[in-house]
C-alpha cells in the first residue's frame, strides 16, 4: 500500500495558448496546486515534471530547473521525466517514491507541454519519435497509424466497429461540456464523428485527440500528515508502471497492451482491490480505440466487450463504470507531458465532490491509466476518498 496523499491540484485550460510561454503555463498549474495546499512555494522540497519534447516543440532542453525557478521554487531538486505520453504519470510515480523513501515530505508532481508552436506535420513527426525510428517510424507509421493497427486487429478479432469507436468520441465530448478547462466544450453527433476526414484508416479526425498546450500539477505529502493541509486529502493507494516492446511487430497480440495489463494487475494487488471496486476511471484515450482497449486491459470488461460496453452507454456518467468524466484526452485535450497528472487532478476533484455537473455519484475509488508511445510504457494510479 502507498502512503502518499494529494493535498492540492492545479491545471491550466487545455487548448492553444500562443499568448503564454512553457514556463508560464507551468507556473499557473503549480501555483494553483501550491495555494490549494495552503503552503508557500518555498515549502516544496522537490519537483518531478513530465514533458515529452520541449526540445523539439519549443527548442528548449533542461526545462525542470527553469520551471521551478519561474514558479518560486528556485534551488530545489528538479527533474524532468520522459515516457512519451505517459511522462507525467512517471513524474507522479517518481514523486511518490521520493516521499515513500523518507527523503522528502512535500513534493510537487507536474506535467507541461506546448505543442502548438510547430506546424502540424512537424508535431506529427515529433510524436512519431516515440516509436522505433528505424523499424517502425522509418517506413512511415504515425501515432494515429500505430493505434489504427491495433484497431484493425481488434476489429478482426472481435468484430469491433467504427460506430463503437465513434461512441467513445461522442461520450467524451458530452462529458467535456461540463469541464471548464477542456479544449472542446461542445457535443458532437455520431454522424459528425463518423464522417470526419480520414487520418489513418480506420481512424478519422474525430477518433484522434487534438494538439494541445497546457500544464497540470499536484502537491503530494505523506498520508499521515495530509490532514494538516486540507480537510479532504485524496489518498493514493497504488502506483505502478510497466513496459513492453517498443515495436508493435514484436508483440504476439495486437488487440491489447501488455504493459497496461501488467501495471494494472500489480496496482490492484497493491491496493487490495479488484476491477469491480473501481468506481470511475480516467483512461488514455489518445485515440478512441485506445479507450476501448483500456477498459478491457483494466479488467472492467472482458476482451472484445469494450466496444459493445461504450455503445450501450455503460461508461457514461451515472452508468456502472464512468470512463473519462473529464472529457478524456479526446475532448479535454492532450498536451502530452501534462496528461498523466491532469488525470489525477480529475480524480482529486471527483473524490472531493468538486466535479460539478460531471460529478460521479458515490465516487469512492478512482483509477488513472496513462500510456506512453506504442504502449511501451504504462503507469497506473489508484486513489481513494479520505
Amino acid at each position, binding site marked *: 500500500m502507498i502512503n502518499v496523499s494529494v493535498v492540492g491540484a492545479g491545471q491550466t485550460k487545455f487548448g492553444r495558448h500562443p499568448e503564454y510561454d512553457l514556463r508560464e503555463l507551468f507556473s499557473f498549474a503549480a501555483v494553483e496546486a501550491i495555494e490549494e495546499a495552503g503552503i508557500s512555494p518555498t515549502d516544496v522540497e522537490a519537483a518531478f515534471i513530465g514533458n515529452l519534447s520541449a526540445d523539439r516543440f519549443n527548442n528548449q532542453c533542461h526545462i525542470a530547473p527553469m520551471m521551478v525557478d519561474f514558479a518560486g521554487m528556485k534551488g530545489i531538486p528538479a527533474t524532468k521525466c520522459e515516457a512519451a505520453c505517459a511522462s507525467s504519470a512517471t513524474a507522479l510515480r517518481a514523486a511518490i517514491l521520493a516521499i515513500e523513501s523518507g527523503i522528502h515530505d512535500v513534493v510537487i508532481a507536474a506535467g507541461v507541454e506546448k505543442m502548438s508552436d510547430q506546424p502540424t*506535420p512537424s508535431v506529427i513527426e515529433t510524436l512519431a519519435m516515440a516509436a522505433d525510428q528505424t523499424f*517502425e517510424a522509418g517506413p*512511415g507509421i504515425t501515432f494515429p497509424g500505430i493505434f489504427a493497427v491495433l484497431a484493425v*486487429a481488434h476489429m478482426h478479432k472481435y468484430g469491433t466497429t467504427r460506430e463503437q469507436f465513434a461512441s467513445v468520441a461522442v461520450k467524451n465530448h458530452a462529458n467535456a461540456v461540463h469541464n471548464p478547462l477542456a479544449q472542446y466544450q461542445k457535443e458532437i453527433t455520431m454522424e459528425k464523428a463518423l464522417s470526419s476526414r480520414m487520418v489513418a484508416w480506420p481512424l478519422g479526425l474525430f477518433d484522434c485527440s487534438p494538439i494541445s498546450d497546457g500544464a497540470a500539477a499536484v502537491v503530494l505529502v505523506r498520508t499521515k500528515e495530509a490532514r494538516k493541509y486540507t480537510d479532504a486529502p485524496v489518498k493514493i493507494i497504488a502506483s505502478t508502471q510497466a513496459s513492453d516492446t517498443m515495436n508493435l511487430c514484436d508483440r504476439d497480440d495486437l488487440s491489447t497492451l501488455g504493459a497496461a495489463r501488467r501495471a494494472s494487475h500489480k496496482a490492484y494487488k497493491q491496493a487490495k482491490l479488484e476491477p469491480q471496486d473501481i468506481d470511475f476511471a480516467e483512461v488514455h484515450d489518445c485515440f478512441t480505440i485506445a479507450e476501448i482497449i483500456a477498459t478491457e486491459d483494466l479488467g472492467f470488461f472482458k476482451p472484445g466487450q469494450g466496444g459493445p460496453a461504450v455503445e450501450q452507454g455503460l461508461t457514461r456518467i451515472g452508468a456502472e463504470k464512468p470512463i473519462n468524466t473529464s472529457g478524456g484526452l479526446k475532448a479535454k485535450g492532450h498536451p502530452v507531458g501534462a496528461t498523466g497528472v491532469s488525470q489525477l487532478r480529475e480524480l482529486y476533484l471527483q473524490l472531493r465532490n468538486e466535479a460539478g455537473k460531471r460529478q460521479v455519484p458515490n465516487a469512492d475509488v478512482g483509477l488513472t491509466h496513462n500510456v506512453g508511445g506504442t504502449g511501451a510504457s504504462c503507469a497506473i494510479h489508484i486513489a481513494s476518498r479520505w
Partner: protein
Amino acid sequence: MMSSETTILNYQALLNEKKLCAAECPSCNTLMFPPRLFCANCFRRGTRWKELSGRGKIRSFTIIHIASATHAADAPFVIVILGLAEGISITARLVGVDPLKPEDIKIGASVVADFEEIPGTSPDQSVTRLIFRPA
C-alpha cells in the same frame, strides 16, 4: 556482409545488397528481428545473420492519410505488420494495392518482400528500403 557483426548499421548494409536478414543465436537458434547483439532467449552475446525468405502473411495494417513531414509526399500509403514464414514479424510498407480500398486488404493475405531504391543527394547515398507486395 553475411559474416559481419549483427548491428543495425550492418542490417541496412545487407538491405542495400537486397538481402533481408534477421539475427540468429548460434546456441539456441532463436531468430530475432530487429536484429540483436545479445540473444533475447539465452542472453548470449554473438548472434549471426540469417537471410529470410521474405514470405509472410498480413497480421494487421493501416492506411496513413496524414503523414509526418518526411513521408507527406507519399500519402496515402499502406503500412502492414506481417508475420514471416520463419516466425518473426516486421513492420513495412505494402505496395501494389489501392490505398483507397482498405476493404481489399485482408488479414492473413500472403505477401512477399521487395526492395525499393530511395535516391539520396548523390548516387552513392541512395539507400534501399524494404517493402512488401501481394504474393
